[in-house]
């Protein structure tokens, strides 16, 4: 009702409601009423959703009430899948209601006739706005909204969002000038509070691991008892393993399906359709199902592994039972003892109505570069006007004129201090100062490369003589040998060979299968959950809600060492094997701990402590060294975050990845180009080389500024390390123990990989070369005489047997 009132008053509105509850219909209702009262041709209402499938589904669901109201309306979708002839017709004669995605909207706005298409637009509905704000697709959409308001000055915006920690920031998205106070904020009454429990394994509670597989029998029981369930996991690898485990237990032949982002689109649509038709009892899924079509009939949600964040948990729990009057039913499956505590913390946070999450970060300059070019393709513009329009977008409200001008210059000719590219300009200015595109090929190139999603190098997986099953990351394939097994798309596959187009596999195979991992697919523990975990740990009064084995575990920790304090920092030092271990209970998330591990080992190196390695979990950071760590306080001083960190971050693969994405979105690198498709590997290579050259010769270039800005927000880990060191200052509790403490066990059995920075590579190469030299007593060392192949291959010289020291040439993700 309040949405209708906002519409009557011509106000923009933000509707915040838990998942379900007819949110989308509420967004549309005013438009339907208006069109009922005052039918008119031409585009009236635009709907933008992050998911193509959602747009299609809403179009279907909207047609029914429209017909019931007796409206003579055209409701159509426009996505990448829309056939060319329909797209052309939509341009000439737009429907009254058009449903689309941010990408398709950008394309429409880059057309010369965008003014005619959108001139009479009355309302734009932005669905799942919380999932878009703060992402690059969101930046793109924010810029498009600002442009729409220029084309149609009377335009009303309606935002639809799930419950979020920062409603004001989202309200700004719905305002023409990014002023949240001009937007009517409508909060739907929260439905019944969700009922969230935990499921523990019948046997021993695991000390470590993240997969939660030992609880699968109990999970299976729940699936049998309930009508329809969604089993959410944290990673694609975990979803594959859980699916396998459930399938092995599936004596009742329950229809259970698998759904994750690496499966083919067709496969995913099939699963979604089967779910909608009520043909499935359960889907094992990843974040791929966090958003999407309401299925209504989901009886329970099971979250395997700790949820890592409250907002995410709520989103997932909301997928169960979309009726407002009944509580959503959900269960958490902690995979280890720490996760039991984390799950408890999450349940308490939900009960107290707390929502976590960072406010959306400022918009990226790479997306702005793409937008500037798109706007130039639409029509010539004055830079002053465009700057004003861009500042009207919430994500760019704080954009400085300098950044805007530099981005514009970048679009024109690269914007380098060293001139030289003027004759290749993409844009030129006329005598009045208007900016034009140089020719039609510029627009063509833009449209081919539009979009803000940059994929990591992927390879298709194809069944021999059969269909494509999905995609895995290239580097994973490079670690496979023909005959190796891996789990993918819910089956055990045998790697046959790599052909130019795909990874060829066959069914079955023997031996322990591996699971493809995907880079960066795991979210770190959120700050507010981490605080709650520390609260529970430090105060035994909170332990009542914990299961017996966990209480005993904590009690034992208190006896043998001490509990991590709420403020301050507990650091344990103990010998084990021939090494010294240092375990710091920081609770700042995996990313932060990995960075911290790197910084601490570097300092230990300077102190001559002989650090050997480190690892970071979501809860602790552990280092092992040759000598006993002394002066622990010095290791955690705040000056850790000085120049060394800057240098390391600039060298890190993370920043290189960030740069690659930015360079691609900004149009420096091809996404695709007629006639020459680049493989991901080639692209990643040249991005690295460009990064190195640019860093050396023009460190203040706009693209490097954009990269650093994004890293500063994306790598919240650095901010978290800062707050940790501050919190710990003067309050570091060092416990010297004679053996490992109970709380340290999960970390020590964690599978971890050291984090190697670029500058360490040479040391590793030298070590590898020296190692073989030592092992062979120098016999195999290179004397300067070139021969064919290995010594045995050419000369029948005396040599020790080779098998013992044979090393396979390894091909993996290129580091540089």
């Amino acid at each position, binding site marked *: 009702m309040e949405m209708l009132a906002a519409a009557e008053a011509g106000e923009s509105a933000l509707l915040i409601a838990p998942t379900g509850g007819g949110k989308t219909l509420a967004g549309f209702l005013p438009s339907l009423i208006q069109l009922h009262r005052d039918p008119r041709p031409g585009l009236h209402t635009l709907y933008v959703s992050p998911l193509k499938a959602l747009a299609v589904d809403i179009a279907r669901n909207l047609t029914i009430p429209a017909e019931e109201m007796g409206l003579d309306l055209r409701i159509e979708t426009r996505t990448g899948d829309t056939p060319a002839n329909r797209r052309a017709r939509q341009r000439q004669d737009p429907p009254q209601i058009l449903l689309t995605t941010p990408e398709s909207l950008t394309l429409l706005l880059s057309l010369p006739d965008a003014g005619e298409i959108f001139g009479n637009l009355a309302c734009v509905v932005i669905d799942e706005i919380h999932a878009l704000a703060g992402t690059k697709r969101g930046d793109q959409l924010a810029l498009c909204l600002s442009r729409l308001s220029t084309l149609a000055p009377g335009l009303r915006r309606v935002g639809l969002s799930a419950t979020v920690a920062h409603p004001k920031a989202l309200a700004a998205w719905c305002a023409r000038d990014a002023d949240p106070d001009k937007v009517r904020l409508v909060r739907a009454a929260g439905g019944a509070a969700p009922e969230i429990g935990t499921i523990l394994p019948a046997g021993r509670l695991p000390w470590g691991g993240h997969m939660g597989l030992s609880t699968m029998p109990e999970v299976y029981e729940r699936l049998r008892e309930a009508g329809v369930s969604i089993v959410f996991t944290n990673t694609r690898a975990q979803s594959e393993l859980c699916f396998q485990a459930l399938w092995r237990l599936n004596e009742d032949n329950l229809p259970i399906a698998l759904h994750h982002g690496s499966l083919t689109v067709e496969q995913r649509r099939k699963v979604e359709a089967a779910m909608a038709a009520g043909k499935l009892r359960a889907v094992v899924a990843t974040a791929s199902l966090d958003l999407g079509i309401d299925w209504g009939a989901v009886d329970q949600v099971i979250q395997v592994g700790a949820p890592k964040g409250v907002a995410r948990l709520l989103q997932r729990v909301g997928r169960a039972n979309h009726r407002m009057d009944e509580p959503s039913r959900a269960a958490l499956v902690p995979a280890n003892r720490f996760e039991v505590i984390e799950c408890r913390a999450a349940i308490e946070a939900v009960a107290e109505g707390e929502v976590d999450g960072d406010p959306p970060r400022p918009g990226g300059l790479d997306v702005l570069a793409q937008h500037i070019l798109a706007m130039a393709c639409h029509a010539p513009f004055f830079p002053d006007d465009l700057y004003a329009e861009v500042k009207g977008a919430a994500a760019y409200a704080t954009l400085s004129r300098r950044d805007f001008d530099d981005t514009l210059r*970048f679009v024109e*000719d*690269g*914007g*380098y201090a*060293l001139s*030289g*590219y003027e004759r*290749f300009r993409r844009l030129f200015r006329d005598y009045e100062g208007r900016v034009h595109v140089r020719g039609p090929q*510029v627009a063509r190139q833009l449209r081919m490369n539009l979009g803000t999603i940059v994929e990591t190098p992927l390879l298709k997986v194809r069944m021999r003589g059969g269909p494509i099953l999905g995609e895995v990351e290239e580097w994973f394939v*490079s670690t496979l040998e*023909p005959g190796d097994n891996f789990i993918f798309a819910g089956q055990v596959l045998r790697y046959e*060979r790599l052909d130019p187009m795909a990874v060829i596999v066959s069914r079955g195979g023997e031996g322990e299968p591996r699971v493809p991992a995907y880079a960066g697919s795991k979210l770190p523990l959120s700050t507010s959950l981490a605080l709650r975990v520390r609260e529970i740990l430090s105060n035994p009064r909170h332990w009542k809600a914990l299961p017996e084995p966990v209480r005993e575990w904590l009690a034992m920790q208190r006896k043998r060492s001490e509990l991590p304090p709420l403020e301050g920092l507990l650091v344990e030092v103990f010998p084990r094997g021939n090494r010294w271990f240092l375990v710091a209970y920081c609770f700042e998330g995996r990313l932060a701990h990995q960075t911290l591990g790197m910084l601490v080992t570097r300092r230990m190196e300077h102190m001559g402590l002989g650090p050997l390695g480190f690892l970071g979990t979501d809860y602790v950071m552990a280092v092992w060294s040759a000598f006993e760590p002394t002066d622990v306080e010095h290791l955690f001083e705040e000056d850790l975050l000085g120049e060394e960190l800057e240098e390391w971050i600039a060298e890190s693969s993370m920043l290189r990845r960030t740069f690659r994405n930015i360079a691609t979105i900004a*149009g*420096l*690198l*091809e996404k695709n180009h007629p006639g020459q498709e680049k493989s991901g590997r080639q692209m990643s*290579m*040249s991005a690295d*080389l*460009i990064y*190195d*050259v*640019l860093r050396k*010769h*023009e460190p203040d270039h706009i693209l490097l500024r954009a990269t650093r800005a994004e890293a500063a927000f994306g790598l919240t880990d650095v901010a978290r390390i800062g707050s940790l060191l501050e919190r710990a200052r003067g309050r570091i509790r060092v416990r010297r123990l004679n053996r490992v403490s109970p709380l340290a066990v999960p970390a020590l059995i964690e599978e971890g*990989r*050291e984090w*190697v920075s670029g500058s360490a*590579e040479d040391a*590793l*190469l*030298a*070590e*590898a*070369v020296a*190692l*073989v*030299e030592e092992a062979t007593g120098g016999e195999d060392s*290179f004397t*300067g*005489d*070139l*021969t*064919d*192949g*290995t*010594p045995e*291959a*050419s000369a029948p010289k005396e040599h020790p047997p080779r098998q013992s*020291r044979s*090393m*396979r*040439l*390894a*091909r*993996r993700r*290129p*580091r*540089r």
Partner: protein
Amino acid sequence: MISAPVHLAGERLLLDPSGALFWPSRQILAVSDLHLEKGSHFARHGRFVPPYDTRETLSRLAPLMRRYTPGRIVFLGDSFHDAEGASRMQAADRAALMHLLGNRLVTWVLGNHDPVAPDGLPGEAVEEFREGPFVFRHIGMAGKEVGFEFSGHFHPKASLPTRCGPVTRPCFLADARRVMLPAFGAYTGGLEITAQPIAALFPRGGRAFLLGKDRLYSAAVGPMKHLAAVTGRPAESLQPT
């Protein structure tokens, strides 16, 4: 900087960690695949990659002139990214290059990217350059009758297993007949030595020299012809020594 001495056809050669080869007895320095003006080539097609690649590549060449003071410099082909590359050079870069070349003899071996002599630069442009027992050409030739050979073209790179996973670097690849040079240019990527086109030239394996910060890391490479040809995957052992 520590260069690695190797012996081929009875001659002593130095492999430099920068990717250059020096032949002391004839005072010849060879570098391959500089791909100068690759940046401006991209810019011409609407991709404004940083225009500093030529400057960067030349700045890597300069210390080699000081270290070895060669009498002749042989560019092993693909010195410019395209035929017009030399004419697109910025005045400052051109001056820097002229200064580097100085009074030395200059040989431009022609490559597939630059099939013509570079515009307005000193030196001779040839398909092949022969000196003593060696022939310098852009693309290595298979077969026994080709003689002792220095070539480039393929931008070889190799991965060495280490404690923390494999490390990939551009490399020299050599056997008893030939030395293949890594690409010297700032914007040049690499091809794994196990890839078919490279492996085919080293049917009995050889030795890879991975470029490091100030030294080379050498490793024996086993025969690669079987598996590599079929799957494009690593075939045999690469042993660091």
